[in-house]
């Protein structure tokens, strides 16, 4: 009896159905279909609890005859707001109040993020500087400002700014154009003239031309190794073209000079002290955290990278810009995003000093005038969530671009 060993040709096992396996893994994780069943159960329970809460609230609000729903947004607000970026009077609706408050929040957040980033980078570089005095000053700035409560700092700036400034009749004026008083900084207001359109077109054209020039210079550098000095031409373009348009088509804007009339200035635009105090406090406070994040990021890049850069013949500035900072940004970006989100959320402390942000005019005044706490708090939460998610998305996109340019 012979044992015959059949020579089976070596054959790959047929792969399991890709789609079903992937789906299974995606939905149920390692637990497979059983895990999926549990997840489904959980989601159903969550939805059930949610609808139950909504239904319960509806019934109870109706039983207590508390008005509910979003109809209040159409009603007339009947109160005024001290700073509005869009036209607003007391006879507008609550929906408009919402918009006014939202824009005020966005204004202080965007400017705050910008200022905090600039100050933060400068302080970080200062702290890394070999100059003993400079690095100690930057260090002291960080340690003092980040260790004091933000609300305290906001009130400090507000009170400090207010107490130090004179009343409008004795305001400090610069050439009778700028006026600084405890009503804020009054500056001439630009009013558009017919020359504005060609002026803007000329400016855009100048920018496009400058970019093209830069592209050409880079191409020359990479292809032929020739380094072109282009900044004088760029400057000439950016100044010359708009100037030419102003000469040909007339001035783009005229300015309305503020005049003291009665209690206050009429004409001109005004930065209210509440805004200035809030912006200063938010940006200087957040800048301390950003400075530390940036410092950490730069220190995380191995110093061999710097040496490699100089051995290639790059200037110190170019090494920083082209080699160190892009690598540091990978470390910096995620915590930096956190700080941006914090700044935006912290702007709601505005309510303490009477800056009309979203929380103050909408979740404050509107809530107490309409009494519709649930709707208004829900809208406000939704808006902050949206702002935060948008900021995160923008930062992630930026991070993705950087990591793509750095390669894997």
């Amino acid at each position: 009896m012979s044992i015959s060993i059949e020579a089976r040709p070596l054959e790959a096992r047929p792969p399991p159905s890709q789609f079903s396996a992937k789906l299974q893994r995606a939905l149920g994780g390692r637990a497979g279909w059983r895990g999926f069943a549990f997840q489904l159960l959980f989601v159903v329970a969550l939805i059930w609890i949610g609808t139950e809460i909504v239904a319960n609230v509806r019934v109870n609000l109706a039983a207590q005859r508390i008005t509910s729903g979003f109809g209040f947004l159409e009603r007339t607000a009947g109160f005024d707001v001290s700073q509005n970026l869009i036209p607003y009077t007391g006879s507008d609706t609550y929906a408009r109040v919402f918009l006014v408050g939202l824009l005020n929040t966005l204004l202080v957040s965007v400017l705050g993020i910008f200022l905090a980033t600039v100050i933060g980078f400068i302080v970080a570089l200062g702290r890394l500087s070999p100059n003993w005095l400079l690095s100690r000053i930057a260090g002291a700035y960080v340690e003092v400002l980040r260790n004091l409560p933000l609300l305290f700092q906001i009130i400090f700036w507000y009170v400090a700014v207010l107490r130090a400034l004179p009343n409008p009749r004795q305001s400090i004026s610069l050439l009778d154009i700028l006026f600084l008083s405890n009503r804020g900084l009054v500056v001439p207001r630009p009013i558009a003239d017919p020359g504005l359109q060609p002026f803007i077109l000329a400016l855009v054209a100048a920018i496009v031309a400058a970019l093209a020039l830069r592209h050409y210079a880079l191409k020359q550098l990479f292809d032929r190794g020739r380094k072109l000095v282009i900044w004088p031409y760029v400057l000439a373009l950016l100044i010359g073209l708009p100037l030419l348009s102003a000469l040909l088509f007339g001035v783009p804007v005229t300015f309305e000079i503020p005049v003291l009339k009665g209690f206050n200035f009429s004409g001109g635009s005004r930065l209210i002290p509440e805004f200035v105090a809030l912006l200063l406090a938010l940006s200087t406070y957040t800048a301390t955290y950003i400075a530390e994040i940036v410092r950490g990021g730069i220190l995380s890049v191995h110093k061999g990278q710097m040496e490699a850069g100089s051995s290639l013949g790059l200037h110190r500035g170019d090494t920083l810009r082209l080699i160190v900072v892009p690598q540091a940004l990978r470390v910096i970006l995620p915590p930096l995003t956190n700080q941006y989100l914090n700044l935006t959320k912290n702007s709601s402390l505005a309510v303490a000093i009477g800056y009309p942000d979203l929380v103050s005019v909408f979740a404050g005044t509107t809530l107490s005038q309409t009494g519709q706490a649930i709707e208004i708090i829900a809208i406000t939460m939704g808006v902050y969530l949206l702002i935060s998610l948008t900021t995160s998305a923008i930062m992630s996109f930026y991070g993705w671009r950087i990591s793509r340019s750095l390669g894997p």
Partner: protein
Amino acid sequence: MKRVSLVFTLAIAAGLGAGLAAQAASAQTLKTIKDRGQLSCGVSQGLPGFSSPDDKGNWTGLDVDICRAIAAAIFNDPAKVKYIPLSAKDRFTALQSGEIDVLSRNTTWTLSRDTSLGANFAGVNYYDGQGFMVKKSLNVNSALELNSASVCVQTGTTTEQNLADYFKSNNMKYEVIAFANDDEAIKAYESGRCDVFTTDVSGLYAERLKFANPAEHVVLPEVISKEPLGPMVRHGDDQWFDIVKWVLFAMVDAEELGINQKNLDDMAKSDKPELKRVFGTDGNLGEQLGLTKDWVYRIVKGVGNYGETFDRNVGAGSKLGIARGLNALWNKGGIQYAPPIR
């Protein structure tokens, strides 16, 4: 601090969602208070004359006396009150959510508040009106001279809307700076951020007391609105609504009948049928309310009649020294009038 109040509003908004079921269904406010052994009363964060704590933490004021009178009627002890200080913008939410049993916090009775907040006004304990305060050095004699002025105001009040109406109907421009707290608004006014501070006239006199030099500030003669201030209760418990309403009436009626803390015991022995009904020696009016027969006796003994609390807190006997004016009894030239206890 502001953060706290936002968190507070959030918590209450959440509470509204979750906790209202029990509230609405049972609506046994009186029983709940008796079980708890204490009345929860929403008051201001410190308005002298109406509700403010002294240096020992004892609350006094005209609005506080409403809380004390209710506690006296229920427990025969005016001290059994837990005071919850509320900002103008948090007050209604606190009432809606059941955090407080009664809101006695210089709150103006308006139609929209009466209808849309799920609450009722139980009467008027002070007839007020909105006014303006300016620094004497500005040499302003009338509110009509306030064109282009900056005005400090507390947010979440009828004041904000009256202000908009007044300046609009007189074709004047102004800038409004709205603060969440009265104290912050006052500080901003004092530091010169605003030319004008506005609130109810009684409030202006009260706040003026807080200044280093009150004589430097004047209250302008114009009163631009009607501000009837009174206590508020939640919808859904008519018995409780009646109790709060009639405690207030009892204080006014006691003054009208000449019952005060000094002659209380003598009056209680009187044979007059009117007084016998009030003191419960005849009939059971107090029990009909859900209280005891001697409820008026308890109120006057613990707190005094309306005139006494007025004098003690805001009137001639207080630092504010406000005249009775509209708040005098109807038979003495004012409009304070309570339905009869019978």
